[in-house]
């Protein structure tokens, strides 16, 4: 989830792609086969809509906490943050903090009321006391837009990254990898539904934490468990001295990069509680109390993971040459695998090859689990919000609904494959930052107003969702992310006039403002009966699904 680009043209520097390739592929295949087995088992148990969308609401707090962690810690977060710290030192660590603190908003304000009052999707809560069809449509559109942007970033990253780790340089090879990742993801979701996806995410979380712990332990052994020594070695080896340990190397360039960083920081901290693929995870547990426990577990697991990025990132900076990291991937995305190779005994050694293969397989598992969660969120919203409640006006049997959700998975997965192939050279940066900014601008205001503001109306919800959505997409379109910069999607043209690469600082306040404005100028009276029902049910869990 970091904003690192993964240029598709880089190759693994070590030059020994062949020797670890067999091992990496074996581990990839083993992971895919094991998880597909679990998916088929989960699919047999998936009978009704509650099973498909919410895994039967049968998971424990710990299980869901693990799955949330697996859903949230994307490959870019594992590889990207380690790489950002390895190259920019302290500034890379700033991401870890925003991603973690964001969870408190989910814990204090969103998780429990959402679990109590919703059924399957974010739209259930947004449309609860509003006119169903327009608000469901808006919620479905925004869910799919956020998830697709996030998905695209992961797909583009997956193609480039796996290609990189396997030493594939041909364009056809990269396309093939994007297609394979897409097919596995469709199988997980279409067959296993939420139950299968949850198990994949739990397994991935365990693998990711175990892999990160192992590397952290080995790095700390090298530095006698002395953080100060590690930091000193990193600062020295980076060639940047103590500046490497201070803020500013990446974002302190000029006044605009500083404002851009604040914009990113705001989007990160407010985006998480509006990400549909995270929100639907709260429906997989029986009660709001268990939802709370699962967020607590997630905060513990995600927090521990991000703390270990210090050892990973500074360890890479201390043990690898900066040129080696950059040569392998300009954005530093292969710093963690390279560190694993180095700490296992260096290029050419058996230990190095094994650790590199293990960490690469963990990265691959990470990508698969995250894309599965995103596909599930968008196909659920398509089937439940758009198909059943808007197109069929609520007159569909449960069987038809689950069938629609499964076909939506195939459709959305195919679209993601197509766009992923098309977007494989795009900058992952803009896409992920956009997903967070859109989530914070379009979804969070309506979630909070719906739950806590009595007067909020349908018009307020529509203005806020569409306004936040369009403002954030529009500003990114004219930002340096899309044109006018060497790292842009279209580096050769320049039609940008918006100076920031993250629109959050403008679009998030706008989303809140429009929700308020749309409400106060609307002639409609708020539905106070429905608000009474929502408020009582969301706080007490009365007749929760």
């Amino acid at each position, binding site marked *: 989830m970091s904003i690192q680009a993964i240029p598709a043209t880089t190759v693994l520097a070590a030059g020994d792609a062949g020797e670890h390739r067999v091992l990496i592929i074996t581990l990839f295949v083993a992971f895919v086969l094991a998880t597909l087995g679990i998916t088929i088992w989960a699919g047999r148990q998936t009978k009704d809509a509650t099973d498909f969308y919410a895994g039967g609401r049968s998971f424990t707090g710990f299980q869901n906490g693990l799955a949330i962690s697996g859903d949230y810690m994307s490959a870019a977060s594992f590889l990207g943050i380690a790489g950002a710290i390895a190259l920019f030192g302290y500034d890379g660590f*700033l991401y870890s903090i925003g991603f973690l603190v964001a969870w408190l908003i989910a814990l*204090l304000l969103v998780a429990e009321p959402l679990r109590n009052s919703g059924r399957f999707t974010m739209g259930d809560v947004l449309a609860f006391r509003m006119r169903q069809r327009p608000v469901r449509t808006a919620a479905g559109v925004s869910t799919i837009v956020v998830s697709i942007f996030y998905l695209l970033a992961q797909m583009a990253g997956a193609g480039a990254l796996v290609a990189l780790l396997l030493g594939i340089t041909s364009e056809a090879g990269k396309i093939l990898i994007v297609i394979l990742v897409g097919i596995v993801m469709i199988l997980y979701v279409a067959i296993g539904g939420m139950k299968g996806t949850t198990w994949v995410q739990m397994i991935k979380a365990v693998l990711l934490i175990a892999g990160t712990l192992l590397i952290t332990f080995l790095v700390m052994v090298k530095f006698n468990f002395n953080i100060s020594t590690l930091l000193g070695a990193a600062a020295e080896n980076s060639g940047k001295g*103590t500046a490497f340990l201070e803020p500013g190397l990446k974002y302190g360039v000029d006044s605009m990069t500083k404002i851009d960083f604040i914009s990113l920081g705001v989007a990160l901290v407010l985006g998480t509680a509006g990400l549909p693929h995270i929100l639907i995870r709260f429906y997989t547990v029986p009660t709001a109390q268990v939802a709370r426990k699962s967020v607590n577990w997630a905060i513990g697991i995600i927090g521990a993971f991000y703390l270990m990025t210090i050892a990973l990132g500074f360890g890479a900076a201390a043990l690898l040459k900066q040129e080696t990291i950059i040569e392998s991937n300009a954005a530093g995305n292969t710093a963690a695998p390279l560190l694993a190779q180095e700490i296992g005994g260096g290029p050419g050694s058996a230990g190095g090859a094994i650790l590199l293969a293990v960490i690469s397989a963990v990265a691959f598992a990470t990508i698969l689990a995250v894309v599965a969660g995103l596909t599930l969120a968008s196909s659920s919203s398509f089937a439940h919000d758009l198909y059943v409640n808007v197109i069929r006006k609520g007159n569909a049997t449960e069987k038809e609904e689950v069938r629609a959700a499964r076909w939506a998975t195939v459709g959305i997965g195919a679209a993601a494959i197509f766009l992923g192939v098309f977007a494989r050279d795009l900058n992952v940066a803009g896409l992920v930052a956009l997903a967070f900014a859109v989530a914070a601008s379009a979804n969070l205001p309506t979630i909070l107003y719906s739950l806590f503001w009595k007067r909020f109306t349908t018009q307020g919800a529509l203005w806020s969702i569409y306004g936040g959505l369009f403002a954030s997409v529009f500003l990114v379109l004219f930002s340096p992310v899309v044109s006018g910069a060497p790292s842009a999607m279209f580096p050769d043209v320049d039609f940008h006039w918006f100076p920031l690469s993250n629109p959050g600082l403008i679009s998030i306040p706008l989303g809140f403002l429009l929700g308020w404005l749309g409400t106060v100028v609307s002639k409609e009276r708020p539905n106070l009966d429905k608000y009474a029902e929502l408020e009582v049910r969301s706080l007490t869990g009365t*007749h929760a699904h």
Partner: protein
Amino acid sequence: MDTASPPPEGNDPTRRTALGAEVYREAQESAEFAELRRAHRSFAFPLTVAFVAWYLLYVLLSSYAGGFMGTKVVGNINIALLLGVAQFVTTFLIAWWYSRHAEAKLDPKSTAIKARLEGQS
């Protein structure tokens, strides 16, 4: 794809509207619900403002107070790193504190109201 399964169980669509509007209006206006709402809002709202402000302070210090943040405290460990780790610590503490508050002050009240309302239907 297994869609030809037996009809679903335990998923009664009428459950959602099991209680009439007047029941919810009455519950919403009751003193015990007002107490529950107050116990949630008076804890969660100020705390949210506080941790967002604390996080923004940290972001602003990182952007505009590089010199201060670079001050070394122990060995190579500087204020920036300590404040960053402090964000982790406060996040863990707030999560723990909220959960303790919820278990002691919110859960008993919400369970009582839920039991009363579900007993009516």
